[in-house]
């Protein structure tokens, strides 16, 4: 449906940093399939917004090609540059960009009113379409309200209604939830997901919030410095990060440096300074190669009975703990390093206590060295 090929965009150097242009988007390619919610996830400044705006047409890429359903919107090579108002895409802005001089109805009606003369619906059809989309986002009772009098969540839904009223093939969302408070954000997350699924909308979603990305998306592309680090389903990106950056950015990880000792049937035996770890992985590493073991704290178990150590079972001492409500975080010293373990709230071990640290196999992923 949406095809991005070798997209690149740089910005002119600002006066402060005279030399060198900023490569905001650096040669990225991906596809979004029909009906899916595809998320660009990454820290702030990694080029998500720029990518989205290039697709919207609000920014002119330097290189690459953008096509929707075979319709080429932009191609540097072929010199195709469809202006943004002719791309027929829906977009929800971070600031919602609700027009304060119009009421709720007029905000949503605007895209219909500016259609080319032949396609513009008549008065009756127009209000019918506006009311339909307003009821989808549950704002139909507020149609006459001045847009500025809406609450944050309502403005958010209004922005969504306005983006949807033309039934665009692709909906672009730039951090749409980041201006809401935590409680509302969670609510809207489900609401958005429900709408997207029920209406069968194809969406390209931009966020720096990993929880949001994992909860909502069908697929996630993790971005870093203008490049895509990894694309995959939320679960696989979380469970099988392919780089230290992804493992670090999504969720929390303990990073343990090690060397591959041998490999038996897809289970690598890695020697680390804290002990030996046995790690299943379908990636290929040479014997003797330096690797990084990323271990998720929620799959690390602590026990106060001190019998049996070996591969994946280490000995350590609790240094600190933090009660976080649903879970209890422990910091455990193992040799020269500290391991973070996240236990359910029944396990709460005071410092300093000698403990057994047991790594479950799901805790692990093996990533190459370098960051």
């Amino acid at each position, binding site marked *: 449906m949406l095809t991005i090929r070798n997209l690149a965009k740089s910005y002119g150097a600002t006066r402060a940093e005279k030399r060198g242009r900023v490569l905001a988007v650096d040669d990225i390619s991906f596809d979004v399939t029909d009906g899916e919610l595809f998320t660009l996830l990454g820290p702030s400044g990694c080029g998500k917004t720029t990518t989205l705006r290039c697709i*919207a047409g*609000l*920014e*002119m890429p330097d290189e690459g090609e953008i096509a929707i359903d075979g319709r080429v919107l932009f191609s540097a090579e072929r010199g195709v540059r469809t*202006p*943004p*108002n*002719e*791309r*027929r*895409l*829906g*977009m929800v*802005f*971070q*600031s*919602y*960009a609700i*027009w*304060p*001089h119009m009421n709720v109805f007029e905000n949503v009606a*605007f*895209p219909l009113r*500016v*259609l080319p003369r032949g396609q513009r619906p008549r008065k009756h059809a127009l209000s019918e379409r506006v009311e339909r989309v307003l009821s989808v986002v549950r704002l139909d009772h507020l149609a006459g309200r001045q847009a*500025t009098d809406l609450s944050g969540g309502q403005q958010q839904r209004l*922005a969504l209604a*306005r*983006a949807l009223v*033309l039934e665009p093939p692709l909906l672009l969302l730039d951090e749409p939830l980041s*201006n809401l408070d935590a409680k509302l954000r969670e609510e809207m997350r489900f609401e958005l997901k429900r709408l997207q699924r029920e209406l069968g909308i194809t969406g390209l979603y931009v966020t720096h919030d990993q929880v949001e990305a994992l909860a909502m998306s069908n697929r996630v592309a993790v971005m870093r410095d203008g490049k895509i680090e990894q694309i995959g389903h939320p679960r696989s990106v979380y469970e099988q990060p392919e780089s230290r950056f992804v493992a670090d950015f999504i969720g929390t990880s303990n990073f343990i440096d090690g060397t591959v000792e041998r490999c038996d049937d897809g289970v690598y035996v890695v020697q680390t300074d804290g002990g030996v770890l046995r790690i299943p992985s379908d990636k290929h590493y040479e014997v003797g190669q330096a690797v990084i073991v990323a271990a998720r704290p929620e799959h690390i178990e602590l026990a106060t009975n001190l019998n049996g150590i070996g591969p994946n079972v280490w000995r350590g001492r609790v240094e600190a703990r933090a009660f976080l409500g649903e879970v209890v975080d422990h910091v455990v010293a193992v040799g020269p390093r500290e391991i973070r373990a996240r236990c359910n709230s029944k396990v709460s071990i005071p410092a300093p206590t000698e403990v057994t640290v047991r790594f479950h196999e799901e805790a692990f992923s093996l990533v190459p060295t370098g960051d």
Partner: protein
Amino acid sequence: MSGRNLIVGLVTVFIAYLALVPLGFLLWQTFTRGGHPTLAAIRTAYSQSGLGTMTLNSFAFAGGATAVAVVIGTGLAHLVVRTDVPFKPLMFAASLVPLIIPGILHTIAWFFLLSTQIGVLNIHVIHPIFGVNFNVASVHGMILVEGLHLTPLVFLLMVASFRSMDPSLEESAIMSGAPLRTVFWRITLPLARPALYAAILIMAVRTLESFEVPAVLGLNQHIFVFTSQIWTTLNASPPDYSTAGAYAMALLVLTTIGVLWHNRISKHGRAYQTVTGKGFRPRPIPLGRWRWPATILILAYFCISVLLPLAILFYASTQNFYAPPSHYTLRHLTWGNYGAAWHDPLVQHGLKNSLILGLGTATAVMLLAAVASWIVVRTKVRGRWLIDNLAFLPLTIPGLVLGVAILTIYLRVPWLPIYGTLWIIFIAYLTRYIPYGMRYVSTSMFQIGRELEESAQMSGAGWFQVFRRIVLPLLVPGFVAGWIYIVVVSVRELGSSVLLYSPGREVLSIAIWEMWRNGQFPELCALGIVMVAGLVVLVGVAYKLGAKIGVREA
């Protein structure tokens, strides 16, 4: 403590004296005769023949010039802030024109460009193309020239407004499928409405107050507006003070309505603020194929508003007798006018008096404003709002009206014999520029944390020491900017001066006015060029010091 009260009291009384006494006198003068209340003056004033035309002219002039300035200024501001048009710095340079070319010079330059007899543009451009001349000495001409002079002010106001607008409001309209034209009319302009209304009112008031344009272009053709009517009434022999007062009252009522209305709007404007708090990067909209036309528009505006007037003034200053440029005149240039102007006693008086008045007024205004706005912003003295309002009041008084009022006072008051001295002009300037001084100082005053002052007080300093050692040094940047601005505007001032000067007490703008009336055009232009150069230096220094003067003028 008592020292402080004494100063608060003195400042209040002095500002009240400056702001209220002229108005009171004007009322008294207009509505009494021989100590008895009467409407005779009003009756005389408004039964003169030609009065209907005068009123109509005034409104046509105000409405037309406002329309010209607002349309051009808003268009340019939108291009500069929201699109990728090139040569943006040029527009900001052009926006300084009203500061560096005094109104009277600007008007005279346009007379040389567009008069039917000697107008260069008429001879070389308009007549060859359209077969007729554009007569600048008409209401249309006055509208055009005043409009061009006010355009930069609208430009600066609207630039500020467009800059504070979240660009995603426009982008979301583009994404909705609207073409750029629709976005401008349906989104951008309505969002800028408060600023637009404010600009319209300010420009209307400015035009009603304007004396230079109606005097230079209208008087000879007997086209009168309020200001030129007042001047004519006072220049008749014998001068008719009460009739002039009656016209002045009418003008005052109009401008006061405008200013108060504007203040109401700017308070309401807050509700319209759309900025969501997240910082946004200005993203200029690509103009695409409209980029070239827009570029030409911008360059044309720069030529018309900056290059043409300056070029014609400079050209005229090099001629023995003024004649439109031709092969002959361009081969017979002279610098003699500069020497002649320098030796002209009128210019020498003007230079000396303008220097004295400019520096004196600026210093006095800024000192007074510093104390007054410190009282308003920083103390809890009861009645401090009174100082604030009193200091704001002169903003509603047109220069010429103030001139009439001050003239009548000091002609009548025997115990303050300042009529015929520089002091009377000084008082007029002081009154006119107090509001500007207040604005410059109070803006920077708000930026000084109260803790700074309080900590100084805790260390045992008296309030005067606090003011001198803490407040004043921190105020210096705003103070300097305001000071330079007031020097600049005092040197150009014509409206009050033209009623208050006497032989030997001329200022530079009066020298130009007199030369204009005597037909000494080349010498006038030489003086004008030198004046412009001086103002460029002053404004340049202000900018070097980081002061964005000009924007505050509104």
